[in-house]
């Protein structure tokens, strides 16, 4: 199965809004919780109460500091899970066929019973989206909650990934990026969504919405003509003058 499908019916994926993500890690833990209890082997932890705790997670939230040429440094929280790439190198390297891309929706999955745990797919993924589970010896990755999004045992409204459902800030969106009319595609178009590492040629389905421009008030106050200045035109310099203005204004009220 490691041949990629020529095309997929849908391109299901996530749109992550870097302007809104507050870096709370809610998506990280709800993902861990759902996927420990569901699809495949539980996500294990080693030395969980010890000196060197380590465990399998399918979604992690990084943070980056960006220093613009002018103005204050900015901080951006940056969630990352599998991007369900169209040209997924992780799939083609897999010797067993355990890694595959679903033809119906483009979700990239690992069939754990076929996986020999060679790790090659993780090598091939530029994004660090795959983690080998130490207890189980198989490769783990984001399933796009394939066992939620079609799950008839869940109310329709809950048929979305655990991380999307839980995100308190609403910074994660799920949908069909192959359909230009879908809400997610429109969001990407509106906000100028981007691919990560486009030069790697993986054609990620997941898209990132860049942060909106920051510190514009600071920039405004640095400019020569302060467009906001008219809003603070003094009515009087002295307290007595102010009270005079007050009397006059109250008359009009």
């Amino acid at each position: 199965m490691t041949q990629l499908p020529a095309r997929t019916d849908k391109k299901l994926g996530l749109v992550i809004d870097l302007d809104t993500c507050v870096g709370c890690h809610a998506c990280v833990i709800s993902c861990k919780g759902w996927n420990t209890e569901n699809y495949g082997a539980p996500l294990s932890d080693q030395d969980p109460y010890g000196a060197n705790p380590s465990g399998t997670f399918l979604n992690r939230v990084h943070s980056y500091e960006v220093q613009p040429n002018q103005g204050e440094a900015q901080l951006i929280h940056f969630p990352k899970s599998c991007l369900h790439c169209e040209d997924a190198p992780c799939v083609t390297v897999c010797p067993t066929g355990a890694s595959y891309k679903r033809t119906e929706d483009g979700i990239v999955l690992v069939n754990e019973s076929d996986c020999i745990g060679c790790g090659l797919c993780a090598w091939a993924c530029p994004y660090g989206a795959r983690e080998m589970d130490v207890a189980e010896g198989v490769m783990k990755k984001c399933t796009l909650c394939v066992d939620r999004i079609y799950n008839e045992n869940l109310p329709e409204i809950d048929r979305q990934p655990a991380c999307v459902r839980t995100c308190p800030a609403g910074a994660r969106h799920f949908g069909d990026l192959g359909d230009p009319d879908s809400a997610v595609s429109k969001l990407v178009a509106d906000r100028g969504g981007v691919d990560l590492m486009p030069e790697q040629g993986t054609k990620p389905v997941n898209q990132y919405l860049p942060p909106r421009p920051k510190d514009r008030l600071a920039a405004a106050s640095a400019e020569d003509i302060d467009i906001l200045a008219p809003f603070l035109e003094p009515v009087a310099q002295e307290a007595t003058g102010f009270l005079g203005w007050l009397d006059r204004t109250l008359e009009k009220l």
Partner: protein
Amino acid sequence: MHPALSVIFFSTFSGLGFGLLVFLGLGYPGVTGWSAFAFFAIAYILAVGGLISSTFHLGHPERALKAFTQWQTSWLSREAWCAVIALLLMATYGAGLVFLETRWTILGIVGALFSLATVFTTSMIYAQMKTVPRWHSPLTPAYFLSLCIAGGALLAGQVTWAVILLLVAGVIQIFTWGIGDKAFAQSGTDIASATRLGNIGKVRAFEPPHTGTNYLKREFVYVIARKHAQKLRIIAGLLMVVLPLLLLLLPFNHYFALLAVVSHVAGVFTSRWLFFAEAEHVVGLYYGARTQAG
């Protein structure tokens, strides 16, 4: 990349083993009977031992057979096929030599080709990794193949070939290092493209996503100090090429020959360790590797 001993072991020894098989397949040395048996035994111990050791890093070695299924896309799968075919062909060919004292020349040549192909497929597993710019280069197969046949020549006692091939391998090794050092910077992947935040300003990884460690950090975010690497390169070059060459150029002596082999193997092992240890995976960018450089 984390230099996993099992993988270094595998690629070093199976490379040598298949290298020896290449020469045996081509009829150098033209041994038969028990001395052929001895040569083949050495080659098989190296090649098969290496292959077996490669399964040590698998999470599920008992499912290893499944690795044969995806030859259409996966170099690992192709490697598995090539290795098995090469070993079977060479076993047949070797049986002829040992038991029938007969050389099936064509079979030997085909077996030699498959032995080379095995090493080539191994090298392609690395060379295909766009994610590791240092590896993602035609030099990677050249490096694997040149060492494979140089080592093969050495083991096969083909002094002249060994001298020439060691020199070639040495040159390729130097290129691999020199060009490899620039590969990451030239790959076009940096923290700006990884985060797509570069248009705002200079990007630096801030807090990691977790203070605990994980598979990715263990496997990919391995860094080796530059000074340390330089020293190891010198050691690798000396052991792998220079010392064996000197020993070969001295009047022939079995001890010297043995010493040349041991030195070469130790050198290849060091070079292979560096091959992994110096390789930087682009995922390291997300974890703050190369922040200063980029």
